[in-house]
């Protein structure tokens, strides 16, 4: 194996000169599913945003490689075009641009090719059906007036349409009812099946993981990765909480 799909080497991150992440390293191979867990405020979203190049965060140290390429200083759009994707915890409303036009523009900018409208619309319709989204949402302004559940579905719809190599799902399951979690999971499964895409799933619960094989689990506490294990670690956390691990990790 030549290189990992994504490789995070000892990065430290701050926001407004306040340190948030401390010496984080992790590597995800093609086709793997990793889970990132941790208490609120541990820095999970910061890690997701840093990987995607959110300019709000400053990477003070370390490097990030994607597909063998150093992307530490690349802009967000370049990272996305290389095949990275972030499903937002709180997807933003963008008035005046429809969901469909947005996805089409994004596809066009990623590939630089002209999108065949008929094929595109067929695919979009199928993906929306899979996610139990009413077709009318395609012509509504991006996330404007969408419920929490519809916003998360809109994120997974974008995942299915943009077909990245690697996706970070930032609390995609939070605030969703049981049915919606099931629908969203179906979308994620479909993505895994079609793209053999790698995933970094940031979550508090296990419901979204039920239908997925988890390769690695990382526990982030107070900006540090304190523990990494296999899929069974998810279960352990679920039963015992972070307390026990925190007491172990705190002494590291």
């Amino acid at each position, binding site marked *: 194996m030549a290189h990992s799909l994504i490789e995070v080497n000892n990065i430290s991150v701050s926001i407004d000169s306040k340190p948030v992440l401390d010496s984080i390293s992790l590597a995800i191979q093609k086709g793997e599913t990793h889970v990132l867990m941790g208490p609120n405020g541990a820095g999970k979203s910061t890690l997701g945003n840093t990987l995607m190049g959110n300019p709000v965060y400053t990477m003070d140290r370390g490097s990030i490689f994607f597909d063998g390429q150093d992307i530490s200083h690349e802009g967000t759009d370049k990272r996305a075009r290389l095949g990275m994707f972030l499903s937002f915890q709180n997807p933003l409303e963008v*008035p005046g641009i429809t969901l469909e036009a947005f996805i089409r523009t994004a596809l066009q900018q990623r590939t630089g090719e002209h999108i065949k409208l008929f094929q595109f619309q067929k695919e979009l319709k199928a993906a929306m059906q899979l996610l139990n989204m009413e077709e009318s949402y395609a012509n509504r302004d991006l996330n404007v007036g969408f419920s929490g559940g519809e916003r998360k579905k809109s994120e997974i719809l974008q995942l299915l349409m943009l077909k990245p190599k690697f996706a970070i799902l930032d609390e995609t399951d939070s605030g969703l009812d049981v049915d919606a979690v099931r629908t969203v999971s179906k979308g994620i499964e479909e993505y895994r099946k079609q793209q053999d895409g790698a995933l970094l799933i940031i979550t508090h619960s296990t419901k979204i993981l039920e239908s997925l094989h988890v390769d690695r689990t990382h526990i982030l506490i107070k900006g540090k990765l304190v523990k990494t294990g296999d899929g069974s670690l998810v279960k352990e956390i679920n039963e015992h909480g972070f307390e026990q691990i925190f007491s172990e990790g705190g002494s590291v």
Partner: protein
Amino acid sequence: MSEENSKKTVVNDIDRSMYDFRYDEKDFYRIRQGLTPEIVSKISDEKDDPPWMREFRQKSLDIYNQLKEPEWGPDITDLHMDQIATYVRPNTKMQGDWKDVPKDIKDTFEKLGIPEAERKSLAGVGAQYDSELVYHNVRDEVAKEGVVYTDFESAVKGPYADMVRKYFMKLVKPSDHKFAALHGAVWSGGSFVYVPKGVHLTFPLQSYFRLNAKGAGQFEHTLIIVDEGADLHFIEGCSAPKYNVANLHAGCVELYVAKNAHLRYSTIENWSKNMYNLNTKRARVEEGGTIEWVSGSFGSHVSYLYPESDLAGERARAEFTGITFAGSGQDLDTGAKMVHLAPHTSSVITTKSISKGGGISTYRSAIYIAKNAKGSKASVSCQSLMLDSESRSDTIPAMEILTDDADVGHEARIGRISNEAVFYLMSRGISEEEARAMIVSGFANPVSKELPLEYAVEMNNLIRLEMKGTL
């Protein structure tokens, strides 16, 4: 974090080069600059005014000299009337066929796409060059229905002379303000439209005003009467090449919407940045009638523009939908005035403004609901987007409600492009400049989609041009 991200987007001014071409005034007649009774009298001579109009002009000049300049809006101290030529006549009579229009002038309107628009989608066209109409035409089938669409000079003297005299500057009186008085004194050109009872025009009429002359003024008068139950869409467009001296536009628009009639009045204003645009527009709407104003203000150095709707009959309705784009060196004071004079009248104001590069955009509106206008509704929504920290945006809404029985809503929002939204779009592979352009055109979209199609497309292109080559 990354260098690319930390760079600021610098947004260019609107590329107005498409309007910025000019021609010589060879063989044109240009009146001496300044404003005196002799000059006004000379305009009357040139136009062969009937006696009442001669008198009207002189009276208006007296009023002009008595009134003060407005002290509440953008600065106009660099506008000197003694340096403005109020009348410039091109070297042609008005033509009914494009091929008879002189070449330079024809080229101008070709570049602006007017003849093409006429062929494709208009019921009639008027084209004014400096002070006079150079072309006017209306489709036969429209004329057959009794629709009158003519240049204003013909209207003053022709078969509709009595009607014109009855309505001319009665809605906007010379005494209303200094520039209305100025208009009364030196008006020239413009259009007269009469749509008979019950006639519905499928295609719009369009007048285009081009001010080519340096240091000149354009003072066209538009008078439209839409009779009972009739329906009209009228489009006016205006542009000018840029000069390094002040030009002045003080047009006047008077619209009469009769019982149950409907008029949509669309304006796209693309004056150059040396233009003082001090325009006055007003509509009077009778029972059950509707006026819809759609307004795009992109040009001029200074604008004072607040179309007024007088809702005179029960259940009369008015809508104003406008967008203003103020770039570097522009101070655009725009908005609308709604006057509810009868019961159950309703008005809706929706505006968007964008300012950048130190541009100033001010939204100013007034809502008046008279004591007897019970059961009336008025709503105002104005949103502003500032593209950088040098630009300014102000909101000055005034309301005077004299009855308890009225439903009035107001919503104002001033904002900037959210960096988070830019990051969101970029995380899908969209470049920063495209992301910003998408956000700005998305902001403008609810208004731009109301503009006539070719202008909506043009506006989106303008926004796109703004964002291009900036990173």
